[in-house]
């Protein structure tokens, strides 16, 4: 009789509460504060309301799920499950992993916190991978080890429409901050494991899309050994606010990579508040 394992993540996995539930993943909504008031991502604030307030210039601060809410969920789950695999957003972007790791000390080995530096669509894929590994009979510890072993086997490129929000939030690495500030420039940033870093610069949407497609193609071929008929990765896409532009890009991406099923999701609000509307991202995660 194999162990019953619960997979837990947070709303930075770009899933809605409904989707998570359908997939059998347990999700903590990320809290954030607008004008001193706390909201829960996807629970007490819709995307529409959020972007209206972001564009309106409201000060938005993000936070981690409270220890209380984390432990409450774990306690509930452990009534039904034997072990928990907890996969928070990347430790390079938030302290959630560290806090969860501390809390997990109180649960002996029953709660395994995974530090595999995924975010958004790649985090979502990690959760699916965890379920898959549990299905293969691994215990929580083994799943954690496996996911951490392959933590660098994913790649994200994200084109930011304006540097305004990143600057406001102080989330730019020095390299990214050095990007010219005189001209209107759209940076393409990359996430390989840890932090956001600058990858390339462009002045047009079309230019940015081409840069990302070329970069992903290069990763697929050189890092993940993909060929035309050997699709060794999941191809994913994320965006902030502009669904129409995202759909257009998805079509272009499909044309560039025929045969791939592209998973596209809006970026979570707690990421959106740092990069602003109009961002587009492409990602790949290597299949397990």
């Amino acid at each position: 009789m194999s162990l019953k394992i619960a997979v837990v993540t947070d709303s930075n996995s770009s899933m809605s509460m409904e989707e998570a539930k359908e997939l059998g993943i347990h999700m903590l909504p990320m809290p954030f504060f607008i004008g001193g008031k706390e909201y829960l991502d996807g629970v007490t604030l819709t995307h529409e309301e959020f972007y209206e307030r972001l564009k309106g210039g409201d000060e938005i601060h993000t936070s981690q799920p409270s220890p209380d809410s984390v432990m409450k969920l774990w306690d509930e789950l452990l009534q039904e499950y034997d072990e928990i695999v907890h996969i928070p957003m990347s430790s390079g972007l938030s302290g959630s992993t560290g806090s969860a790791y501390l809390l997990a000390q109180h649960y002996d080995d029953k709660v395994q916190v995974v530090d595999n530096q995924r975010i958004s669509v790649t985090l979502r894929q990690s959760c699916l991978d965890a379920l898959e590994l549990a299905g293969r009979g691994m215990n929580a510890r083994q799943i954690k080890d496996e996911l951490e072993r392959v933590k660098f086997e994913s790649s994200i490129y994200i084109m930011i429409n304006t540097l305004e929000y990143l600057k406001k939030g102080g989330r730019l690495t020095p390299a990214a901050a050095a990007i010219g500030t005189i001209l209107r420039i759209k940076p393409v940033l990359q996430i390989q494991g840890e932090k956001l870093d600058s990858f390339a610069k462009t002045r047009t949407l079309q230019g940015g899309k081409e840069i990302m497609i070329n970069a992903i193609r290069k990763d697929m071929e050189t890092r993940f050994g993909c060929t035309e008929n050997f699709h060794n990765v999941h191809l994913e896409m994320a965006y902030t606010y502009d669904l129409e532009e995202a759909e257009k890009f998805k079509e272009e991406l499909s044309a560039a990579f025929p045969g791939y099923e592209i998973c596209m999701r809006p970026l979570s609000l707690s990421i959106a508040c740092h990069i602003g509307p109009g961002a587009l991202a492409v990602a790949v995660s290597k299949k397990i």
Partner: protein
Amino acid sequence: MAVKEIDVKLFAKMFLAGAKYLDNSKEEINELNVFPVPDGDTGTNMTMTIVSAAKEVRDLGEDPDMKSLCKAMSGGSLRGARGNSGVILSQLLRGFTKAVRDEQVITVPLFGAACTKAVETAYKAVMKPTEGTILTVARGMGEKAAELIEDGADDFETIIPALYEHGNAVLAQTPELLPVLKQAGVVDSGGAGLMKVIQGALDMFQGKEIDLTISDDPIAKPDDSRPGKAADIQKNIYHTQMKTSISKPVNRQLESDVKSYLASIGELIAFKADDNEVYLEMNTDDPGLVVQKALKFGILSDVKITCRVQNKTADQSASAPAPEEPKGEPSEFGFVAVSAGDGLADIFRSLGVDHVIEGGQTMNPSTADILDAIEKVNAKTVFVLPNNKNIIMAANQARDLTTEKTVLVIPTKTIPQGITAAINFSDGSSADENEQTMIEAIGTVKTGEITYAVRDTNIDDHDIRKGDFMGIGDKKILSVGTDMDQVVIEMITAMVDDSSELISLYYGADVSDGDAGALKDKIAERFPGLDVDIQRGGQPVYYYITSVE
């Protein structure tokens, strides 16, 4: 008496006479400009190129040997080369001298071989040789020399006048080979410049009395120091003088504004304006500002900047005089860009360019200027953005002369292409990948520039009157008129297509912030689906440099 040989002394004198003759005719060559824009400079460029060599020849003294003479001619012109015609002239000299440098005298057969070598070398230096240019004129003379010698001519008294005559005949044919020349009603300026050199050499050969004094004008290298005066001058250390040809008389208001401005940046010695020319002379700490101001009146000539402290003469397009010693470990990549105007220089610096050479269409930097800049950048690989089609060859020449570093010239023909190239650079990629990305990227940006016509003409089916504003695109004139904003908008309309996203405008030194802002609003209104970005470029001559991408 038949002359069968040219000895070293005569060769040197003929060369100096050629340089001198071109120097005296440079304004005439400058006038031979296809586009009627206030930037005619072929005469200036070629003169600076050859005078740079002439000075090295002069410094050899009365009795040089063939080898040193050839080295001075070849090396001096190579380093002093400016503009495409200047670079080609330097290659002609290089080829010619290569053929004769190991001999004591130039015989007729050797002369024929040297002419052939000169033409070959020049053609090789150009990626896509265009007929109807200086190359054609040179080739015509080279072939004529071979033909004459084959037919038994063994006497320079026959050959040299015949070459001169034939060269002029080929020059007269250049409009038939190059439609833009015919349309503008001019012969090729580079070819005309070459014929001035030949004329001077011929005059000397025929024994005319010629003053061969080569003076230190602006082309001198920065380190060309001569015995100086007292070194106790600490303020306004640069003696600066220049002439500006003007197209319309200077009004009193402007004159007094300029005078008070100049007085505020140094000690004004003379400011004289008549109907054709403004002459100014002053001592200042920042000759660049004086040049900028003088450019407002028209075309510069006879720029002379002398450092009063050590009496060093400095090139007028050279940048800051203090050499920066490269320090510490070299970085992987560095950038050199050529641009005119403080705003554009700031933009390039903000994009990571290490060294901006002040120059452009009106002031082509020389190969030596570009070499200097490359040397100042402490990096293993240096990318050079010439940002002007007339500077690319000099940049390539600088690359070929660099030994310590890898130099990659990205052939940017306009400022917006240079900006696009710099933006597309990525620290994480290899030099080759970056080169390829940048070259691809410059193909995605269209450039349009606004200036005014200096004469009446008809070009690209536009009737142009002196003083009209013109919008010049990548390949042709896109709009003409008397209302500048209208000319800009028509030009942009011709540049925009379905895939366009962004219009950028860089406004020049002669455009006020208010006027530029008002034009931006008009453009935004006219092209509602496009983003409009406006920046102060501060460039001379071009009111607006725009790009659509």
